[in-house]
């Protein structure tokens, strides 16, 4: 009797195993990224893991994945290490008074659907973006364009209301001033959606299965020559553990730092993959600064005091963070922007890791250690909350380290891990003491990060509590319209000095973009932005 049951049970288990075993011969590859172990016929495709779906690829709105948009759409000019370079515009002239930009377009460009890329297409695209200006206020240029005219088949004139020095930089960004075939517009607009995703870039969107994968195929007619990597697949893999295992198996063969600056797998996992010989790990130059943002406007919290913020600054052991947590892959950051960022080479007072200095600052500010381990002032304890992104493998470890060092100076930090969107909510509502954040990256720094100092939804709560807030905001307004280099430099120096003295942005490390790629992949390079990669330059030997 009982024998029947056990036989049934065994049969059930065996059938599952057999079912699984039957198919081991036929490799059910997802993108066909077979392992590079064979070596006979190098694959010409990449499958990258991404925590999120590519989402809506409309380049004039913001939900889409930037790495994906970056290979499908292009801008008129490109921001490179050596400054602004031609892309869809071969050359340009700027009028004496700085208000008229004349772009001479490339003549050999077509959209993926075969439509010609010409002055008319540029005009239609820019005008469509401007008709939705309230969504693009972060990019100041959107409020300063008076008129776009097609001065010839391949000549476009951009008239501004006033001179604006970052105009070309903002024209080079991944969105919104990039170009989609006018045939994809719906009713002459792009703001309520588009009917297709035809750009001019090196890759075309070939297939998209929501929350599963998206396939991009090489654009044979790309003006810069058809890319060598024939196919790129973006595969949705929300969990880091699975990404690591999928890399080992070869179902995906490429990962890179995502747009929140987080890596889906940690340094140790990357090193393991590299030591297997199947993968290589490539890191960019420093791209951004990872930091702790302090809410100076939170009057009921100790964090509103400059001395407390300075003490935290002194209590962060950046060398240990760099060496132990990042295994040297990120370097210690002493200022908000590293000196290779434009206009950021400013002399600022150095605040080293110095617990005695931190103690003295607190003592002088009236925070005294009477009993117990936590300092008090007028009965309230020196206690704050630090929010970190639960999906970042390194933030929690850093938070724990900082928590343990500030404890030595009599400060209590409560650590709270939340989803990145929840942290963004806190930043915009001001409901935080301290939180982890990062600057926007080389292409956007310093102008975009600094413009965000005054923005309600970004760093307004961070900066509005400081004594010189009014002066800071006035200077930010001035610098954006400044016309000569010297005064611009002086204004940026003032701005950076104010936020440094107030210690509202406490730097931790300089972050870079990390790529894990098949060992045989050549030509791995980076862009100035930390969100896109130039896949079209990569190839297998």
């Amino acid at each position, binding site marked *: *009797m*009982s024998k*029947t*049951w*056990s036989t*049934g*049970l065994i049969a*059930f288990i065996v059938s*599952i195993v057999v*079912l*699984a*075993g039957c*198919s*081991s011969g036929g490799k*059910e590859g*997802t993108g066909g990224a077979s392992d590079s172990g064979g070596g006979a016929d190098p694959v010409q495709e990449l499958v990258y893991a991404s925590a999120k779906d590519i*989402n*809506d690829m409309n380049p004039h*709105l*913001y*939900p*889409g994945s930037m790495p994906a948009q970056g290979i499908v759409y292009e801008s008129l000019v490109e921001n490179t290490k050596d400054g602004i370079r031609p892309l869809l515009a071969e050359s340009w002239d700027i009028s004496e008074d700085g208000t008229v930009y004349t772009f001479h377009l490339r003549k050999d460009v077509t959209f993926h659907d075969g439509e010609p890329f010409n002055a008319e297409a540029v005009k239609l695209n820019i005008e469509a973006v401007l008709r939705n200006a*309230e*969504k693009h*206020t*972060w*990019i100041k240029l959107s409020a300063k364009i008076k008129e776009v005219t097609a001065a010839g088949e391949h000549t476009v004139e951009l008239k501004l209301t006033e001179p604006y020095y970052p105009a070309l930089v903002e024209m080079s960004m991944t969105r919104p001033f990039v170009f989609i075939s006018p045939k994809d517009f719906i009713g002459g607009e792009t703001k*309520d*959606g588009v009917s297709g995703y035809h750009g001019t870039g090196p890759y075309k969107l070939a297939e998209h*299965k*929501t*929350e*599963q*994968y998206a396939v991009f195929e090489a654009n044979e007619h790309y003006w810069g020559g058809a890319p060598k990597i024939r196919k790129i697949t973006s*595969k*949705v*893999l*929300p*969990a880091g*553990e*699975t990404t690591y*295992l*999928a890399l*080992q*198996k070869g*179902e995906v063969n490429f990962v890179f730092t995502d747009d929140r600056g987080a890596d889906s797998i940690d340094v140790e996992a990357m090193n393991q993959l590299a030591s297997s010989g199947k993968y290589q790990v490539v890191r960019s130059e420093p791209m951004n600064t990872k930091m702790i943002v302090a809410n100076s406007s939170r009057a009921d919290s100790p964090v509103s005091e400059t001395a407390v913020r300075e003490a935290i600054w002194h209590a962060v052991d950046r060398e240990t963070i760099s060496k132990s947590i990042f295994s040297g892959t990120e370097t210690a950051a002493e200022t908000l922007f590293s000196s290779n960022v434009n206009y950021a080479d400013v002399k600022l007072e150095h605040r080293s890791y110095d617990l005695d200095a931190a103690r003295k600052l607190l003592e002088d500010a009236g925070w005294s250690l009477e009993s117990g381990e936590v300092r008090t002032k007028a009965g309230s304890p020196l206690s704050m909350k630090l929010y970190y992104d639960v999906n970042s493998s390194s933030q929690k470890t850093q938070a724990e380290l900082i928590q343990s060092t500030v404890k030595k100076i009599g400060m209590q930090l409560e650590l709270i891990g939340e*989803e990145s*969107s*929840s942290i*963004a*909510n806190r930043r*915009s*509502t001001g*409901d935080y003491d301290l939180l982890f954040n990062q600057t926007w990256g080389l292409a956007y720094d310093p102008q975009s990060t600094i413009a*965000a100092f005054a*923005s*309600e*939804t*970004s760093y307004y709560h961070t900066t509005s509590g400081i004594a010189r807030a009014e002066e800071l905001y006035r200077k930010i307004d001035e610098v954006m319209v400044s016309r000569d280099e010297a005064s611009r430099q002086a204004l940026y120096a003032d701005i950076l000095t104010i936020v440094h003295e107030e210690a509202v942005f406490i730097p931790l490390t300089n972050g870079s973009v990390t790529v894990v790629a098949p060992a045989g992949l050549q030509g791995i390079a980076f862009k100035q932005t930390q969100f896109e990669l130039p896949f079209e330059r990569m190839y297998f030997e």
Partner: protein
Amino acid sequence: MGGYIVRRSLLSIPLLLVISFLTFALSHLSPLDPAEAVLQAQGVPRITEELIAATKAELGMDRPFLVRYADWLVSSLKLDFGSSYVTGKPVWSLLGPAFANTLKLTLISVVAIIVMSIALGVLCALREGKWTDKSVRGVSFLLTAMPSYWLAALLIWYFSVKLDWLPTSGMDSYLSYVLPVIVLTINYAGIYFRVVRSSMLSQLNEDYVLYGRACGLPERNITMRLLRNSMQVAVSVFGMAIPILLGSTVVVENVFAWPGLGTLTVNAILGRDFPIIQAYVLILAAAFVLFNTVSDVINAALNPKLRKEL
């Protein structure tokens, strides 16, 4: 019997109404301005007061709460759940495929869970206190206690990477079902088989078993009778397994990159995408009510005494 089904179904209507109103009310209690949350979910880098006001007007958020609820109720009765605030796509076009994917996973898992639970439950009951019983209970205790994401990672490592038998993740072929189903089965069968076992055991001491044995009935017949009588408790438990699983596959979906309800709703909640949240809660609540009703009806069919109670 027909009357019972009708009465039982009518009861669920006020329940669904209350649930829908509560979700609507609760989701509006959040401290963050919903229009702002929507704009954040759309990735708009800088959100101004004017933009928030314009978005509110566009999405109809500036109207009174009760008006909005009434509107929503009327259109959802016509099965029109509106459009997502964040992407502008119809809710059904987003929720439909995700729901179908999760349902497929759930149904297959529930079948596996029921088969395993009954098999193990009966085996353990018949071998009560013996080595088989103890070891099955011990192992299942251990497996159920394992966090599902950990168990999942372990299985992926062994079956997908090491043996190279199965895909690590995704939903590409029938093979993709094997690992997620195994994880869910281990998680739930380990609990449910105890229900079967204990109700079997309580039946074992009944007089009819002793009488049957005394009469020399074949042991197989007695076991089948035992199983039928102990199913009453199990049916209610299994009946609820489908909706419970529907609402709790989030972790497994995350690990296996399953394009189901989990990812969609978590994002919807973070982005305050009310039309999706509302539709999701309503569907799940309806599933709970439906399966509860179905299991009551099955029990009523098994036990005529229960029919009179309503």
